[in-house]
């Protein structure tokens, strides 16, 4: 049986694609799934750092595609979970070093062997995005509850709908305090605009930064609230019905924008 290939994308940079990929990878591996994380950000690879695996890289994705090595030679086994692997990006090549067709072939090969192929998509909507999306059959879009990432997420959802259908959404870095004060878009604001299925909400948490720097994804820390949020998201991906805590606060931030002209 062939595994699921899921691309994790956002349009905007810095909203947490790589962090989410690492956490979902670890979380799915904890549940006993065979998982490979593919770093699609050729030229700006980060996933290896977040995973704390940078010193184990020998070959990378471009080597595989160019036939300079076998897929299994390039796969880096995680130090905590033997059923979790990383296929690192090349740091020295450009996005144009591979084509969507090559990515499709590679993904097809990987899903023969793994239950989950998680593809970490680069920011932007250019070649890197097209490559990352090419082999996937599902997409998870990440956004933070801010106006410009939401707009970029909207753009990406529009592009994905042509090929993959409706993606699922993770809202990252939600601050319950700011939502309560009405200073941040709340869950409903974001969903009103993006109109896709919500997969989960990850609260703002400085543990994420610490975990990233240490190379140990936050989901490993069962006491952190963001780690717990990722754990719930993983269970939802596996088909469990886990309720999503509300982050709605009082009133909508959006409704306070866009009042104008002469209204009678």
């Amino acid at each position, binding site marked *: 049986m062939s595994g699921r290939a899921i691309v994790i994308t956002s349009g905007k940079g810095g909203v947490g694609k790589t962090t989410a990929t690492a956490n979902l990878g670890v979380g799915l591996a904890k549940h006993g799934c065979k998982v490979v994380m593919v770093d699609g950000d050729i030229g700006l690879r980060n996933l290896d750092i977040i995973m704390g695996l940078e010193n184990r890289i020998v070959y990378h994705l471009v080597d595989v595609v160019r036939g300079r090595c076998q897929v299994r030679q390039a796969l880096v086994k995680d130090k905590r979970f033997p059923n979790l692997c990383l296929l690192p990006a090349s740091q020295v090549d450009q996005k144009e070093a591979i084509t969507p067709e090559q990515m499709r072939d590679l993904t097809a090969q990987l899903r023969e062997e793994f239950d989950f192929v998680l593809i970490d998509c680069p920011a932007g909507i250019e070649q890197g995005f097209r490559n990352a999306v090419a082999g996937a059959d599902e997409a998870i879009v990440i956004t933070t509850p801010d106006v410009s990432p939401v*707009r970029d997420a909207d753009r990406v959802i529009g592009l994905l709908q042509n090929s993959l259908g409706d993606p699922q959404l993770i809202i990252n870095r939600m601050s319950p305090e700011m939502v309560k004060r009405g200073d941040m878009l709340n869950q409903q604001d974001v969903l009103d605009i993006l109109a896709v299925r919500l997969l989960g909400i990850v609260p703002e948490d400085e543990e994420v930064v610490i975990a990233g720097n240490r190379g140990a994804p936050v989901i490993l820390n069962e006491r952190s609230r963001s780690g717990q949020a990722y754990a719930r998201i993983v269970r939802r991906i596996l088909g469990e019905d886990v309720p999503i805590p509300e982050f709605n606060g009082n009133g909508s931030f959006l409704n306070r*924008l866009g009042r104008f002209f002469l209204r009678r």
Partner: protein
Amino acid sequence: MIFLLQHIVSWSGVETPECEGIVSGGGEELFTIKGLKGGPTFLFNDKAPFAEVIKAVEEELARANGFFRDSPAILAFGSRVLNKEEWRALKEILHREGLLLRYAVATEPTSRELLYKEGLPVRDSLAAAQETKKGPPTIKGSNALYLRRNLRSGQKEVFEGNVVLVGDVNQGAEILAGGDAIVFGTLRGVVHAGYPDNREAVVIALNLVPLQLRIGPFIGRADEGQNHRRPPQPEIARVKDERIVIEPYHGDYRRP
């Protein structure tokens, strides 16, 4: 052959909406020239052999003795299958007589493609082409583009008539309509109704919260100072006293 001069003169006038056609070439009508507001419109008989049509046009224009020079002409081919040589021959004659080609109306796909590739805008029908030029009322009797989906950031719909969209128009999305724009959903993106200069066009949305709105030559901008909340309600935007005004819409399309 009859020339109704007073009608022809109105081609350059702005006031007269339309005037009836005038020139027919030859015994059996090979083509007709109609004086429409957009300019003299050549209605070609799409059954007659095109060589004869061209010949008739050439003779007619020669008789008109430079009358059509610098007129913005519209060419209506009907369902004729036009080939490149025929088109080139016709174009040469029209150019020689100084006609400025605005657009063509053709229904046959290969003709449409040919004309498009030759750099001439192609439209479906004269009626559709005229619609955007005419003023009110924009709601009745004109054609509309009906869409049932969300327009997301980066997506754009352009249509020369009215646009009806069931869904949301998000920030970063755009609708450009020659007539009205009706959104059964939340309008957050940019809508330009009555493009480019129809100030009679309206924008109606169930939740009208764009940061910018354009109707004909007018642009309205969100008031950045104002910050009060309000529940969504259907609203209508239109031009009044040289500015865009938004009012609650209760299903009564009237101009107070």
